[in-house]
């Protein structure tokens, strides 16, 4: 099928206003990259040099800030905390929400409609409002100061993934399921070998949106991870940016190290990622 934009020269004759808007877009977009470059550039300078001679010619470029961050301040310890939280939450979230969605979409049972609405409730209730009871609960089972607490809470927010996946599974033709059953596959094997792999575009979309939220989350770790040893990267960044006079160098190094690699990954896979975001948005 021909796309509208193939036959319609929509990018022609846009006029003067559109020209101004375009210029503004160029400025705004460049600004974002310039700021990141500026941050990266300064992260190779010594603290005194940055604070005392911010816009002057740099005295020298050095990797000292990074060496200090990685070897003296154990950057990778905190990085590992963040990675464990991300991977564990994501695996749990995806598994649990696709089970639930499949159960809701594939089977007819009494109370199905109620259950669908039940799982939607979470969309209206931001997790932080229930944080006091959750804190009490986790205190009783001694999970405060344990990254498991952040993992469980992050994985429990399944409303949106369940909604998206239910929609997907419900639209799958019944024949696919029936064919698998005729081949002798049980309910679980059908799910794992046939149905779940088919949902991978939706799962990808869920993974993208959820991983950004989980990786950058601030509120949950702030409340549940009080000890230095189990802090995550965003909390470590705050530790350095709190007192810029004494830790400007480390603040620059950690901001660069925790931002630039992810953005490079994003730029490489931007087409797939943005498609995933749009797919999720259209469903939502």
């Amino acid at each position, binding site marked *: 099928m021909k796309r509208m934009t193939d036959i319609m020269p*929509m990018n022609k004759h846009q006029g003067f206003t559109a020209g101004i808007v375009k210029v503004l877009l160029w400025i705004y977009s460049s600004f974002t990259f310039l700021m990141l470059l500026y941050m990266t550039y300064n992260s190779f300078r010594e603290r005194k040099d940055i604070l005392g001679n911010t816009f002057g010619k740099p005295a020298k470029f050095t990797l000292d800030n990074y060496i200090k961050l990685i070897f003296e301040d154990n950057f990778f310890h905190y990085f590992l905390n963040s990675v464990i939280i991300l991977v564990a939450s994501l695996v749990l979230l995806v598994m649990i929400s696709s089970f639930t969605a499949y159960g809701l979409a594939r089977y007819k049972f009494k109370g199905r409609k109620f259950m669908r609405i039940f799982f939607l409730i979470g969309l209206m209730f931001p997790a932080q409002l229930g944080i*006091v009871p959750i804190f009490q609960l986790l205190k009783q089972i001694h999970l405060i100061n344990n990254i498991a607490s952040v993992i469980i809470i992050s994985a429990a927010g399944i409303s949106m993934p369940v909604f998206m996946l239910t929609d997907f599974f419900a639209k799958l033709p019944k024949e696919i399921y029936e064919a698998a059953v005729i081949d002798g596959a049980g309910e679980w094997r059908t799910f794992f070998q046939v149905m779940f792999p088919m949902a991978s575009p939706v799962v990808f979309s869920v993974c993208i949106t959820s991983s950004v939220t989980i990786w950058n989350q601030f509120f949950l770790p702030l409340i549940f991870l009080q000890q230095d040893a189990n802090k995550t990267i965003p909390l470590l960044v705050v530790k350095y940016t709190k007192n810029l006079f004494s830790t400007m160098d480390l603040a620059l190094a950690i901001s660069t190290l925790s931002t630039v690699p992810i953005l490079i990954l994003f730029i490489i896979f931007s087409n797939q990622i943005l498609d995933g975001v749009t797919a999720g948005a259209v469903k939502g």
Partner: protein
Amino acid sequence: MKKFFGKRPYLLFLAPGFILYTIFVVYPIFAAGSLSLFRWNGIGEKVFVGFGNYIELFTSSNLMSQMVNALKHSLTIFILTALINIPIQIIMAYMIYSKVKGKNFFQVAIFSPQFISTPVIVFIFTLLFDGNIGVVNKILELIGLGKYARPWLGIPEFGIYIVWIMISWAGIGVGMMYFIGAMKMIAFDSLESAYMEGAGFWKRLIYIVLPQIKMTVLNLVLISYVFSMTIFDYSYILGGTSGGVNGNVDVMPLFFYRMAFGDTNPLGGNISSNSIGMGTTIACVLFFMIFAIALIQLLIVYRKEED
């Protein structure tokens, strides 16, 4: 046992999600409601006070003034987002949808701050707006406007607007993607015929595109509302637990955090004798503010589907 589940395989599929979701999403809402009826700080004696906490919240001049201040800021963020960000997002989306030159670059650049964590965003703005090392002041100096140089982040009146600017820079790409998604669903013959009839670039946006994405606009206004009422990180990082100088960046969730978890930290420090009671009370008030609006959204969407 096996036979029971064999007949009802859905129970096994639903169980893990149901259990986790019920314990960590649904139960806390009701638990917060019931805890708000007690005077308690988690350690001492738990005393039932009925709606005492609510009455105290709305009559104590100290608490009330903190709440009004925080609520005013949360609503300021919402109104600015709805009136300024959403139109900008629509225009950005329309430009990209119309395949202007550089659209891939725009899309990536505008969306990328979404991947940056809040503390780093605040830090980047410090590099920009700081009084001594900030780029903005340097630029003002260079173009001869040095007398307007200010420690921008330290001006109390600007606080909440700076929070809004940071939120916007970080999040404007998400809404833009929503609109691009919605625009891609527009039937192409309507745009085509408008084009044939000579409708210009902006006329097509106003008369053809906007009416077809109005549900997305409505959705995004409501999402912005929920988001504005729950945003916490920026104010905490900029102004600490107290919400800045005289609470100049204080917002509702931070007010809640301060009451529930004390002035220093959740595990000790300056916790009041009623931290949990008052904390959950504020959470419930905030919850109803969100719920009332969310309900309106549901009704509108529901009615739309009935049509």
